[in-house]
Structure formats: structure tokens, C-alpha cells
């Protein structure tokens, strides 16, 4: 390992309406790039990125899910064992904020109890130059902040395009993940060889039923 300290793994999932910029945020974080017309995500995409915060080395194991409603039934398999979630909306698109609320609710009900959730209002660059008459912004900072306060979420407004606040989201999540817990979970998965796996059927019945154990 290139890190002096044991690497802390964080299993992280991105949720949010289609086209709010989930993949773009991840791309900015992982490769520091931005693509004007990124293809819609189908199913989910898996990416990893390492980050050193202070004296801690953190490896983010990221599932970037597809936003379209039709794929929503796949989401649980990706968030079930996640330690952190980014719930993303588009600050120019109120419907996406409604959807974000629903995701938060679903995570509270279905995901792990200690999951760290960050609420992220993306496309901040579009509203930077807003003037009084013609507001591009459709979701106020206060609305986002209120939801975050109510639900105990981290809250950021970001721009995947300019990079504004993107790294900060991930750093804040990293700081929220306690060291012992995180490295502990790493070892737990290593017992079955492999990090970042997501258990799809719960309990691995899916595997066992088909081919038994090797």
C-alpha cells in the first residue's frame, strides 16, 4: 500500500433524479474532468478514488446509480450496505428536489441506520450570476439547508462543471466515517476476499442457489 496508515474504505452510493449530475460529480471527483454531454447511466457504474485527509487514507468505493424512475428498483441493492450516500438534486430543477426528499426518506427507512447522507444541490454554476428579475435558481439554499437540518444531513451546493465544492463533499463524508468502523468493515469484507462488494439479494442466496459454494 502506498499509504502509511491502513486505508479506510467507504462504500458510497449516489442517488437522485436523472440528469442532475451524479455521474458528473463522480467524474469530477475521480478524474477532475467534466463532460458537457455525459451519457445517461444505465443500471449503475462503479468507480473508486483514494483521498488523503490529514493522516487518514480513504478509499471511496462508489456506486453511481441511474436516475430514471424505471431503474429505481435496482437502487436498494446498491444502497443497502452503503456507509454513505450522496442525494443529489439540480438547483435549477424543483422536481429534482422533490425526488431528493423521497430518496432521503427511503434511505432512512431502508438503508443502514448509521448511513451518512449528504444532500447535494448541483449545477451551482448556473445560478451564480442570477439577478433579481430572472432567476435560474429554482431551489433556494434555505430549502436545501432546512431539509438537511431536519434530517441531519450534510449539505452542499456544488458544481461538477466548475468543480466548486465537489471535493469538499467527499472530504466531509470521509470525516464523518469513524476510523475504527471504516477499517473494520474493510476487514469484514476481506474475509470473503474482495472489497466494496455489494450484496444483491441479501445473504448471498442468489449465489448459493445457483452454483453452491466453491
Amino acid at each position, binding site marked *: 500500500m502506498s499509504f502509511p496508515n491502513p486505508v479506510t474504505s467507504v462504500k458510497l452510493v449516489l442517488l437522485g433524479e436523472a440528469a442532475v449530475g451524479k455521474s458528473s460529480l463522480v467524474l469530477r471527483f475521480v478524474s477532475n474532468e467534466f463532460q*458537457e454531454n455525459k*451519457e445517461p447511466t444505465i*443500471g449503475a457504474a462503479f*468507480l473508486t478514488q483514494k483521498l488523503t485527509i490529514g493522516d487518514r487514507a480513504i478509499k471511496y468505493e462508489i456506486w453511481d446509480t441511474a436516475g430514471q424512475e424505471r*431503474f429505481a428498483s435496482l437502487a436498494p441493492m446498491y444502497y443497502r450496505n452503503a456507509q454513505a450516500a450522496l442525494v443529489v438534486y439540480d438547483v435549477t430543477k424543483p422536481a429534482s428536489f422533490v425526488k431528493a426528499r423521497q430518496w432521503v426518506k427511503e434511505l432512512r427507512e431502508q438503508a443502514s441506520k448509521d448511513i451518512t447522507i449528504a444532500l447535494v444541490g448541483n449545477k451551482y454554476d448556473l445560478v451564480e450570476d442570477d439577478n433579481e428579475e430572472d432567476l435560474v435558481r429554482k431551489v433556494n439554499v434555505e430549502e436545501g439547508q432546512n431539509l438537511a437540518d431536519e434530517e441531519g444531513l450534510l449539505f452542499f451546493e456544488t458544481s461538477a462543471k466548475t468543480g466548486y465544492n465537489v471535493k469538499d463533499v467527499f472530504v466531509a463524508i470521509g470525516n464523518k466515517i469513524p476510523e475504527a468502523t471504516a477499517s473494520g*468493515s474493510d476487514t469484514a469484507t476481506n474475509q470473503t476476499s474482495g472489497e466494496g462488494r455489494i450484496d444483491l*439479494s*441479501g*445473504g448471498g442466496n442468489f449465489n448459493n442457489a445457483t452454483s*453452491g459454494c466453491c
Partner: protein
Amino acid sequence: MSKKKQEMSQVYLGTSNEFVFGELGGKGKHLSSFLKNLSLTSTSRKSKNLGEDVNSSIYGNMQYGRVLGEELGNGSGGVGGGGSDELLSSPGSPKLRPKLVGRSISMGTSFAFSGSHGDDSTSINLGGGSSGSSQSGVGNNGGPYKHSNLSSSSHLKSHRTHSNTFYKDLDADWDADLNDVRNKKLTSVKQKDNNNNDPSNKSRNSLSLVDSFHPEIGMVSSLPSLPKRKDEKISSASKKQSLDHEDHRAQLEVAKQNQLNSKYSKFYKILKPGNTIDINELRKLSWNGIPQDLRALIWQLLLGYLPTNKLRQSSTLTRKRQEYNEGLRVLTIDFDDVKTTSNTSSSSLINNKDRQIYHQINIDVKRTNPSIKLYGDPQVQKSLRKILYLWAIRHPASGYVQGINDLVTPFFHIFLHNYIWQVQKKAEAMNNPLKESDYEGLFIPGILDENDEIEAQFLKDPQLIHTTLNSLDTSKISPRAWSVIEADTYWSLTRLLETITDNYIHEQPGILRLVGELRDLISKIDLELSKHFEHEGIEYIQFAFRWMNCLLMRELSLDLVVRMWDTYLSETPLGFSHFHIYVCAAFLIKFSGDLKERDFQEILLFLQKPPTASWKEKDIEMMLSEAFIWQSLYKDASAHLRS
């Protein structure tokens, strides 16, 4: 052990057994039980072991190298598995499929697939010699497989029959091509003494028919091993002659054109004479690839959109195109509206379902094929919005699902190409009124219209001859022509999606089923890979969901997808669901060696961006051939297992 850690591993080890769909995804349905049912009806632990036997005995009796060596007249005799790489990608590869399958069953020697993947690490290792059953032959398996093998071999037989008729033809042509090459070569050497013309130009001029089409497309893919074979032939014919570089290139050129020429003429024989097109013959021929300029016509025939009865073609298309336009006319959507986000208030967005569908289509069309310039064009995007939206509201059970925006592009691409080609050919004919046209009867009816004034301008446009899809100025195409292209695309897409409706309806059961079938298939074909995935905790749905949802379009370039669809459209039933599974298997196994070296994360990262950037048509054709073989071997077997 910390509390957190305990919790995590508990969850992982199965305290939470159920997969509950999200509130919007489903009403308390459980994916795990669904998937369990799936797996119960397919591979069980018991049948998996049987699967191994089948693998080894069937594959133990395959021998590609020898078969191909004979076919190609390579003469090198003992070409074993190791040499098959070159052989499989040789000019024989398009006809490889049926022959290989037909013959291989009766061969008594063992064969390892490895060479065909160009890398021993991707060896499929299907038990070439390792099982000790290599002499036993196909009929010698016990149990249920006896039946399945018999049925699969009879299935193969029917293919063999047609291969023996049709593919022999190709062989004969191939010889003719070679003779031609040799003659051309001699002439060009002779002529070279007298003048300094570029021999390749000369040969191009000598082939007016080919000239009138696009010689760069079509069978080029199978050329790489041409020089070698020619060298052999020629050196045995006239040993003293050594070839300089230019001659060599000229030969290549001629061979290429001859091959294309003969390919075209095969299609002409089916398409031109009589009033009815023999669709079965067309399927057989098209399976191995369709020349670019005939593709639109043939795709429409294969889809059943264009009638095989020529007398009915024109009226049918006219009616369908009208239907499309009428469908659009009743819609209240403004297809020029591309700012659905900021123009619409939140409440209307949420309440108006159709509006929401349009919005989703709108944002996805902007993100479709972002690497291809044509798809950034406003007119093209508008056409795609219309097609997708009309389809979505006419098919409410599935509606618009992301990925369908990908599936529409091959049709649109090919039909737009066809329009430009027809205009070009018409312009050519207008400029040479005396020359008899070679492509008569190969136009799709109703694409061109004499009364279309914008088209009349386009016909006279000096740039027309140089126009390609990349350089197209879309404003030169009339609204009438766009609507024809759109209508044909719409109906073709409709026909395609009819065969995979399950993939896009609520909870996407078709995709879940196909992913399960792929997993089962891999456990039969490549047990080691299957075990490795299992060991690493890889779930097929994590990477194969997209393979089904977008039919591998995200993994392969559009050109290659188009070639792949020649074959899919030639399969009966259309190859977009079942045959596709076998293609996915072949695709995955291409990387088997690589994947076995990797852990969970590396596997997922690899499969998200499989290294296909340098792939050529021959790679696709290889993959299709493998898929064909596996379909022949396992289709009936799996049907049997299920019952």
C-alpha cells in the same frame, strides 16, 4: 470487533434476506425471490456438474484448425488449435460459421479455443483432451444430455445444409477472385513497363460496378491475411516473380474490390429479379454482413417492415409513413422546445406525465452518442425526440426507458445514410443519362420525391458528392425527407422493441431473466470464470444489466454495432434477446483470462470500460461466430434443463 463492523458483516452474511423494491419501484415485490425462482428453474448444483461433462465432450470433439485448413486450401496440414487465430480471422471467416459447426461435430480430435482469442490468457479451455472423453463423440453422453445433444446436432444439420449450397458458392468465388488477382497482377506488371500509372488506380478504373458503390466498406474486415495467401498462390504459379510493394498493394486493392463485387452480386441475385424476394436466402447471406449501401433496404426487409413482395412495397411504406405523421399530428408537444427544465413550473412537470416523458427524452437525446458530431445537430436531435416520444406514448406499458435512445441510433444512422446515397446516385444518373444504372431496384420506395424542391437543390449541390454523415449540412435535407427517415426509423425501432418488450416494462423482468441466463450459460461454457466471479462476489447484474438494456451499444462503437445488427436481424426470431445472450457470453469470455486475474473491484472497473477501442469488424464477426456455436450447442440443452 466494533459494533459497526458486526452490523456490516451481519447484513452482508444475510440477516436481511429480502430485496424490497423502493416505493416507486414496486409494491412490495421481492427481487431475491424472483431471482431465486429464476435460478431454480435453470442451473442447479447438480446440473452444473453435468454441464461440465457436456462441455468437455462436445468441445473435446471440435477441431477448428483442421477444418479451416481444409476449407481455405491453406495446405499447411497440421494446423492445430494454436494456429486457429489466424485462420479464424482469415478471409474465410464470414463463411466460417455454418461450416465450422457442421463439420466440427463429427471430428475426432480435440481442440482448444484459446488461439482464437489471440491471447492464451483468454483461453476458454473447454477440455480439449483433458476430459478423456475426446473419442467418445457427441452421442455418447449419458443422461439428459443425450437428448440435448441430439437435438442440437440436428439443429446444426439444417445449417449445414444451407452452408453446403451457399457457402460453396462463396468458395468458388473466392477461387475466382484469386485467379483474377493473379491475372490482374500479371497485367499490371506488364503494363508497368509501358507507363507509370499507379496500378491501384488502374485496377479501380477497371471495375466500374464496384466503383459505383463504396469500395471501402463491406468485406474489408476479412482482408488481413490476404497477402499471405496470395503470395502462396502466386509464388507457386510463377516462382521467379518477386513482388514489389506497389504491386502488392494493387493486388490487395483488386482482391478487395473483387470480394466486394462478388458480395454485392450475391445480394443482387436475391434482391433484383422477380417480384418476390426470398427472405430466407437473404437472411443466410446477410448473417455474414451486409454492404453499407444495401443495408437500409435489407434491414427493412429483414425487419418485415418492407414487404418482400415488391408490388406491395410502395403502398405499404406510404401508408406507414402517413401513420407516423398522423401519430405526431395529434400530439400537443412542441418538438422545438429543448428547455423543458426552466420553462415549466414544477407542478405541471409533476402532474403532467407526458410532459415528464418528453423532458426525460429531451435531456437524453442531448446525451446520445456524444462522441459523434452528427448527434449534436439540432435537426437530428429533433428527429430523435419525435421518434422516441411517439414511441413512448404509444407504448405506455414501458414508456420511454433510458437506453432506448441508444437503440434508435443505428436505424437512424443507416436510413439517413441511405437517403444521402440515393440522392447521390440519382444525381449521378442525371449527369450520365446514357449509362445504365447498377443500382436500379435497390432504392427503397418513396425516399426520393421529384416534387421536393429542397431535394432538387440538393441534387444540384456541388458538395453532394462529398457529403458524408460526418460532413452533412442537415439544412439541405427537406422536411419531407426527414419525416420519411423518421417514419422508417420509428417503425424499425418499434419492430425491434416488440421483441424485447419485457426489458423495459415495470421492474424490467426481461433484463433480469436475460442476466440470469447469461450467468447460467457462462457456468456451462467457462466454469473457471464462473467460479472466479462467484469467489469474488461479482453479481452479473452489476455489469450485465447495461449489456441487456443497451444491447452492448455502450461497449462497442456504432460501426461495429451496425455490423452486429446485420446478424441479429438475420436471426429468426430476431437476435436481440436470445441470440444476444450468446453474444454477451462470447463477449465476456473474450476477456476471461484477464478477468480471472482480477479481484472484485478490478473486474467491475474492467467491465465498465472493456478494451474494445481497437476492435475491428473481424473481432465482431469472430464473436458472432462463437455466439452461433454456443447457441447451437446450448439452446436446446437449456430448454431441456428447464422442463
